[in-house]
């Protein structure tokens, strides 16, 4: 594979500047919220200087900005870059801008509604808690904007296939398309929930809502959302990390197989978030549990392929013996600073993955459901490999598109390791606390962590305090990142044209596998399995719910109408 350098035109440069810089501001705001939550829960503060005294308002902001807004923006920005680079084609800039503007307007609306206290519903927005209609409209615009971005790539892909008959699509493009195929399918149920249920009910056009159905549609979307976060990181792991490490991808076929398996098994798994729910037959929950184990398989394959690729790199760099190669990887190489973001994320993900399998394990979920274990777990996934890969790549793309040098590379390089220490401490506190019953989404400060309260739970205190220590370290590393990122934004432009080059990896084993060349059979298989897995669930929910619910405000036990 010859390396290719893509020239960047002005419109592309401005668009990507917007798509990378604005979500970084949202992310930093969200991280600030995260720090405040750990302090609230330990009873150290009773009010947050920016968001006010309402813990749950801040928590909503944290979840929406970090898990929904930042991730969606990044996936679109990264997709724009990867598709145009790897296919060597120009994006249609009109639609790329339309997509960006829709996402911006949507995010701004949703954020504003949360800020003025009209949408304190957390990022899962379960009815019958009601948010302002503009909150739901904002989220819809964010999602529609990401759809437009995807639709903008499809003609390029089809053209490339026509012009390169019989050739393998670049693996990075397969990964990006997998991400957005999963996203396109999975956002349909949440679109139905928002457009046909939440929005008319929130506007007062209908009086009641089926809370159980809405919740089920949310999780129909809510778990594939996790893979929408994870898959762009997988693209970097497969396509760029081995090259950064100085090696090759152990198996190209494994990468393609992994992505196709994600298309098939990412979606029919949502009720594993609802094991403890009423109104869904236990046998269907078990079926979703089975598919969840199936979707763990591509991640186990990935663990092998990436370890083998890194071993190859380490040995090429002179590593000897069974483990010697591990010490030869470029953990602290300033010129390959991006490697540190990827490797640190991978290490965190070992624990994220294991705790995820615990969550998926049907009855075992009884021990952890809605306890602090769960945020402990997902800070090892979405706030581990996903966050670090997204931050690292944001900085990488920013410097290329704006044609500016990355500033303070030493700090940029150390940030992921500091984050890793912080998130391990934080998650350990949360998970241990969760195992002895500490609930998630709960402001323990005034009650369970308060010595003067009748509800005081002394055995939870040390775990709550540990999460503060972790949270402070995590915040510190994000501050370091923000300084590096904005120092790069305001750095002096380099001489010459802006260009983009990805460190694209060559395969070590390269097989030509016809059945992995086309998305179509995999998408059809996915749709069949989704219909089989979700039809009985929806029927159960409809048959066992007795009517609907009026809207409620979080402030008052009496219904709003």
């Amino acid at each position, binding site marked *: 594979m010859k390396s290719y350098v893509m020239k960047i035109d002005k419109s592309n440069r401005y668009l990507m500047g917007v798509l990378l810089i604005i979500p970084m501001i949202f992310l930093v705001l969200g991280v600030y919220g995260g720090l405040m939550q750990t302090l609230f829960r330990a009873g150290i503060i009773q009010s947050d200087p920016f968001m006010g005294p309402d813990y749950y308002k801040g928590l909503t902001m944290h979840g929406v900005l970090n898990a929904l807004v930042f991730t969606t923006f990044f996936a679109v920005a990264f997709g724009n870059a990867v598709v145009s680079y790897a296919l060597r084609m120009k994006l249609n800039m009109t639609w790329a801008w339309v997509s960006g503007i829709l996402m911006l307007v949507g995010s701004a609306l949703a954020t504003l509604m949360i800020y003025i206290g009209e949408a304190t519903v957390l990022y899962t927005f379960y009815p019958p808690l009601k948010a302002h209609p503009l909150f739901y409209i904002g989220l819809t615009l964010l999602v529609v904007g990401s759809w437009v971005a995807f639709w903008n790539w499809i003609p390029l892909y089809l053209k490339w296939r026509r012009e390169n008959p019989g050739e393998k699509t670049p693996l990075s493009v397969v990964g990006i398309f997998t991400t957005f195929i999963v996203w396109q399918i999975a956002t349909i149920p949440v679109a139905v929930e928002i457009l046909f249920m939440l929005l008319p009910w929130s506007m007062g056009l209908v009086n009641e809502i089926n*809370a159980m159905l809405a*919740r089920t549609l949310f999780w129909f979307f809510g778990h594939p959302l996790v893979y929408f976060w994870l898959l762009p990181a997988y693209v970097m792991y497969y396509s760029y990390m081995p090259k950064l490490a100085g090696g090759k991808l152990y198996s190209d076929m494994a990468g393609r197989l992994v992505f196709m398996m994600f298309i098939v098994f990412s979606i029919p798994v949502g009720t594993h978030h609802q094991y403890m729910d009423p109104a869904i037959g*236990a046998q269907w929950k078990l079926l979703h549990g089975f598919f969840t184990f199936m979707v763990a398989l591509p991640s186990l394959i990935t663990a092998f392929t990436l370890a083998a690729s890194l071993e190859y790199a380490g040995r090429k760099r002179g590593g000897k013996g069974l483990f010697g190669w591990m010490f030869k990887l470029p953990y602290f190489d300033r010129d390959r600073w991006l490697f540190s973001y990827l490797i640190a994320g991978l290490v965190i993900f070992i624990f994220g993955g294991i705790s995820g399998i615990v969550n998926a394990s049907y009855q075992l979920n009884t021990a952890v459901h*809605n306890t602090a274990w769960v945020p402990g777990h997902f800070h090892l996934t979405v706030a581990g490999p996903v966050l670090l890969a997204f931050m690292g790549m944001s900085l990488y793309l920013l410097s290329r598109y704006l044609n500016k040098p990355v500033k303070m590379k030493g700090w940029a390089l150390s940030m992921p390791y500091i984050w890793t220490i912080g998130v391990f401490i934080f998650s350990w506190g949360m998970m241990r606390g969760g195992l002895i019953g500490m609930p998630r*989404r709960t402001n323990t400060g005034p009650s369970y962590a308060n010595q003067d309260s009748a509800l005081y739970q002394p055995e939870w205190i040390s775990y709550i305090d540990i999460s503060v220590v972790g949270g402070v370290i995590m915040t510190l590393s994000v501050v370091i990142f923000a300084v590096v990122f904005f120092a790069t934004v305001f750095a002096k432009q380099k001489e010459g044209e802006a260009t983009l080059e990805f460190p694209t990896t060559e395969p070590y084993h390269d097989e030509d596998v016809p059945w992995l060349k086309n998305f179509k059979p995999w998408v059809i298989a996915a749709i069949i399995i989704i219909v089989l897995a979700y039809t009985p669930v929806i029927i159960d929910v409809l048959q066992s719910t007795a009517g609907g619910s009026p809207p409620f405000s979080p402030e008052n*036990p009496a219904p709003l109408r």
Partner: protein
Amino acid sequence: MDKSEKLALGLSGLLLAAFFLALIYAQVARGIEVPTCITDVEPFTSDTLFQIDENEYELHMITRMWAFEPSSVTLPVGSTVHLYVTSRDIIHGFKIEGKNVNLMAVPQTINYIPVTFNEPGEYFFACHEFCGAAHHLMAGRIIITDNEEDLARADLPGGER
């Protein structure tokens, strides 16, 4: 795919199969269940404790912003409780400390799990789904005792309301 890849794939598959079989074993051989779809129980709007056999009780529990009804139940050691839960307003949930009980309470539905208490003690539970401004004050407990006085005061079946 080379030999080592096939081996890794096979071992991964076996590992997951073993995990999944463990779940089936826990359900079939040990009888550990998760809540299922209930259609044969009439919706209820007030909390009640029924004694259905010598050591067997049926508890209809209501969750609301921001309390469990009943918030405290006293029962003798060895009691089996058939726990039915619904919500009067929005979504709530709880996990009983030290027990395999973890339930979501969703309005317009009924959730159910049976549980047996063989050890005396106070079994604490806190609302674990965000339910508004005073969510963190919503908690309850089940008191399991052999003390005749405590049980007499609890005035079974009916418990403390």
